[in-house]
């Protein structure tokens, strides 16, 4: 799979590279420190390191006309409802709600420079690079006034950032040599499980000249996975097990601490 992607991206590099002036084709190769994050009972968050090499580039540090990189890590999609409280009969209750559909459950972007300087809006919107540019589609039915839509969008991104699930780390990609780079992406303890996408983009003068995509799996393992699977697939058995454990614990305590 990764070879296929590599091959595809090389083809892509060749074609786009040929259009962008007559320089040698740029190649982008990336690699993850791990392509499986397993969540066990001692999981408190981790980070992945992304290494890469962009060959045939003559990159000058802080050169606005040079090559720039952006790496996006995206979690499996979710539907998320954002609600706003309002006073109702003197009590604060949830009033308006906006449902965001197929939004990434996790989103992190790392880049070499400020994202807004990397390319124009349309390109960034198309590729979904940067928190201001991710596609947050909303459902058709909503009781939110059009003028308030942006408030909901901003609140949504802010809350996700607070949870550590959305992040933007500009200038966090560092070049180790002229062509080799690396960056760290933090994965907090509350990340959802599923298949993640790691997309890397090489820009030249605001155009994408090469890109790669890799997958990263986040999965519960061992006891965590067994428990979760049981709760999902055999709920009746899981419930009865919980009850038996509880009765046993209570009975045992009664026996141990028996006074009469």
């Amino acid at each position, binding site marked *: 799979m990764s070879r296929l992607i590599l091959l595809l991206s090389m083809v892509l590099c060749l074609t786009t590279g040929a259009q962008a002036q007559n320089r040698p084709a740029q190649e982008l190769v990336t690699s993850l420190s791990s392509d499986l994050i397993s969540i*066990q009972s001692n999981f408190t968050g981790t980070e992945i390191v992304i290494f890469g090499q962009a060959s045939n580039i003559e990159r000058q540090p802080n050169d606005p006309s040079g090559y720039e990189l952006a790496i996006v890590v995206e979690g499996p999609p979710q539907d998320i409802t954002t609600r706003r409280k309002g006073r109702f009969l003197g009590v604060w209750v949830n009033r308006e709600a906006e449902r965001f559909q197929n939004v990434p459950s996790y989103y992190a972007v790392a880049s070499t420079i400020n994202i807004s300087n990397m390319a124009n809006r349309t390109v960034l919107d198309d590729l979904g690079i940067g928190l201001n540019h991710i596609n947050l589609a909303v459902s058709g039915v909503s009781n939110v006034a059009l003028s308030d839509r942006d408030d909901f969008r901003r609140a949504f991104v802010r809350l996700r950032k607070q949870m550590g699930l959305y992040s933007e780390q500009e200038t966090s990609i560092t070049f180790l040599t002229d062509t080799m780079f690396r960056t760290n992406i933090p994965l907090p303890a509350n990340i959802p499980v599923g298949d993640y996408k790691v997309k890397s983009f090489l820009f030249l003068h605001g155009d994408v000249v090469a890109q790669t995509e890799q997958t990263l799996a986040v999965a519960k393992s061992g006891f965590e996975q067994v428990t979760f699977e049981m709760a999902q697939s055999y709920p009746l058995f899981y419930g009865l097990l*919980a009850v038996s454990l*509880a009765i046993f614990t209570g009975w045992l305590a009664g026996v141990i601490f028996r006074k009469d």
Partner: protein
Amino acid sequence: MQLYLPIAEIPVNIFVIFGMGGAVGFLSGLFGIGGGFLLTPLLIFSGIPPAVSVATVTTQVVASSSSAVVTYWRRKAIDLKLGTILLCGGVLGSLIGVILFQVLQSVGQLDVVISLSYVTFLGAIGGLMLFESIRAIRRRKSGVAPKARKPGQHNWIHGLPLKVRFRRSKLYVSVIPVVGLGAIIGFLGTILGIGGGFMMVPALIYLLRVPTNIVIGTSLFQILFTMAAATVFHSMGTKTVDIVLAMTLMIGGVIGAQFGARMGQNLRGDQLRLLLALLVLAVGLRFAVDLLLTPDDFYSIAIRKGAGA
């Protein structure tokens, strides 16, 4: 030590959770209550998702009540027939509770309903208990003997049809209020994640006039089975029972309860009720403040579909 909870999908400090279970267990042993109404808010305030907190506390209540039921069973202080009829109502109420729980969750009003119910019930019960215990303390100080229950004293409940005889409780009442009471407590217990003992005991004493020596054992018996049913219903419906969280709470809880029970024997009944009333009112007040004060953040998010929903 951090422990990742498989259902809540967040890591928690296991000693903090264990301590919470122990502290609530201590109070439940002291006052002879399940402690659900204290534990659920504590878990919610400490960052456990409300749905997981409510469902998991039902499991914890099973553990804490089962150890007490064994004790009352030995003392023959349980009216099985009364308990079973209460239970039938309880299971019915619990089932309706799970359905409503899911509906409220999907329309985003679960949190406010939980908060409002806490304010209403804890406020009302706490107020009544406070009033009653102060009166009892005053009466004790002034040396006036409390009025004994007169035989043949009836209220409107004793006029209802479908009467059944409960031998151990020396009662002859209609099953309608018994099933109704069981259903209401089962319903509230499932929605709020509480056993409901602090509502059941006064209701059995004042409405049905069950003798006090039978009341606690019977109430615990009914709570045990209602909460066991609620655990299974939550497991199948909301799928939010976290077995790891439940075990941690249980172990802390049963240990704390033993120490609480010992300390409770050194305090007078009316003093205990006064303290419990203040505790209940404090929890109710805490919820009221949250509902009435302007929130720090007007916005909240909830995952509806996809990973982690």
